[in-house]
């Protein structure tokens, strides 16, 4: 694994826009960054793929354990949330996608930082934009990325009806872009894919309806489960019979308490970092992460018995994970987002930051292997 300098294509903006990549620049700074690329060997890619498959298996075993042994309390999940999660798991509702954020460093096994199991983004740039980049600059090399094909394959297998509604928040280019990309893949799979904003969803006393009064039988939501559960309409989800993508059991995996459960179930697993729900159990520095934190907010390094300090996240509790700094590639700190589609490893996308905690100001850098 190395970081190589690349001359950006002079027309990269035009190309990105031609693909429909609306958020290649965020707040005036390039988010898509092709001044560099990460170059892997085939063996390194195989190791990431195997670790991803292994972590997904561990996660499924953990969900099974939570449901079977009713271990929802450490996750801070309400009775209503637990009931939805349990029912969706017991019905065997299938999942579409997820992104493991991995620490990948040369000569070391990949380590799980966290699992974005519910509302992962950075999908379109991984699936389409970096693929197009490879085609134009490194057509003879390969890339760990069959996300697009796997998404189109996955939709019909989810057992949804002919129409799936898609929703996300207003005024957010990145979320809208990701949602529209998924609508694109569903459309190619023969599914009708109308869009509405999350606040436009209606309830008519029997079921959820869209702006035209059409029933919403299945809903892809780029909107976190824990947010939905805090809102008025959540009480209708169960009675309505609506199929949700991701399914409700993903609430268990998108909650960072899962990191402590995984370490408890699979101690010393080479792809896991030690993690506990209580401070002071880790010798050396630990990273306190809010259980429901997003985009790196309120994450901080703690030592000894020091607890995490809630900011806009963290009132729900923290998980304490052994500190494992991102590898340093000349002042650039990459985190490898490893995608699963229908629980199968599907490819990677790399975001790098100039500081060791990845936030929503990170840049997306393409990769290849040979």
């Amino acid at each position, binding site marked *: 694994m190395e970081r190589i300098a690349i001359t950006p294509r002079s027309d990269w903006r035009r190309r990105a826009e*031609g*693909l*429909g990549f609306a958020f290649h620049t965020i707040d005036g700074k390039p988010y898509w960054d092709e001044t560099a690329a990460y170059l892997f060997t085939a063996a390194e*890619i195989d190791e990431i*793929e195997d670790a991803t498959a292994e972590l997904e298996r561990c996660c499924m075993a953990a969900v099974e354990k939570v449901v079977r042994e009713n271990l929802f309390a450490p996750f801070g999940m309400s009775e209503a949330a637990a009931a939805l999660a349990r029912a969706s798991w017991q019905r065997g509702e299938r999942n579409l996608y997820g992104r493991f954020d991995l620490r990948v460093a040369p000569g070391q096994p990949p380590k799980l930082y966290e699992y*974005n199991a*519910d*509302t992962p*983004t950075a999908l379109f740039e991984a699936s*389409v934009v970096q*693929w*197009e980049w*490879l085609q134009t600059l490194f057509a003879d090399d*390969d*890339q*760990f*990325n*069959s996300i*697009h*094909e796997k998404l189109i394959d996955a939709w019909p297998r989810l057992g949804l009806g002919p129409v799936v509604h898609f929703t*996300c*928040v207003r005024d*957010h280019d*990145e*979320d809208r872009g990701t949602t*529209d*990309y998924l609508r*694109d893949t569903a*459309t*190619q799979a023969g599914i009708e*894919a109308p869009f*509405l*904003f*999350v*606040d*436009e*969803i*209606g*309830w*008519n*006393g029997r079921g959820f*309806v869209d*702006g*035209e*009064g*059409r029933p919403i039988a299945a809903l892809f*939501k*780029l*909107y*976190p489960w824990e*947010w*939905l559960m*805090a*809102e*008025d*309409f959540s009480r*209708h989800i169960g009675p309505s019979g609506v199929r949700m993508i991701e399914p409700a059991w993903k609430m268990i995996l998108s909650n960072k308490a899962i990191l402590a459960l995984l370490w408890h179930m699979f101690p010393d697993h080479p792809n896991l970092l030690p993690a506990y729900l209580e401070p002071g159990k880790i010798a050396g520095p630990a990273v306190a992460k809010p259980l429901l934190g*997003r985009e790196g907010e309120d994450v901080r390094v703690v030592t000894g018995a020091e607890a995490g300090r809630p900011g806009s996240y963290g009132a729900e509790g923290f998980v304490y994970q052994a500190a494992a700094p991102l590898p340093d590639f000349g002042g650039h700190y990459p985190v490898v987002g490893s995608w699963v589609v229908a629980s199968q490893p599907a*490819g990677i996308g790399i975001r790098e930051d100039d500081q060791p905690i990845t936030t929503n100001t990170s840049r997306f850098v393409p990769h290849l*292997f040979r």
Partner: protein
Amino acid sequence: MKRSRSIRLVLLGAAAVTLSACGDDDEPIGGQYFADEAQCASAENGDTCRAAVAEARGRHMLTAPRFASRQQCEQEYGAANCEPVEVAQAQGQAQTTTPSNGKPDGAPQQTSTPRTGFSFIPLMTGFWLARNAAPGAMASPVYRDAQGRAFSGRSYVGTLQGRNFTADTTRGGFGGTAMARSGSGGGS
């Protein structure tokens, strides 16, 4: 080979421009039903109501669903719920007028243009006043179908029993958390 063999996009890319031009978001979501101008004026500014009625009427004449026969129209909208519109031809341009408009006795209105026949449209049973809409895009006609369901344009807005409107869809029960986190996205 671990990469996609080929990638095709059907909604994004060049097509995206067309898509947004079609407008996902043009339907009035929030709003209120009024049976007529008087009912409107009891809740809203009188000038607003007068303009809204005129606007809804105008849209009704231009965009109401058209049927070749009264029977076909009544099948959709119920007995005595349809009215004829005169289809007139003037220099190759189709024009319509309602014979009953403004005529309490329903007597056919005499026109000077040559008559070529009638088509049938549902009665406008009130109007939908959109919330926070721009002037000129605030009111649309409401139709009641044979099952008593009320539609504003394509949007199902509730049920009608006579003049009694029940909005049986509530909205806004999702999305509050994102709003409270001002501009925060749902992705991660």
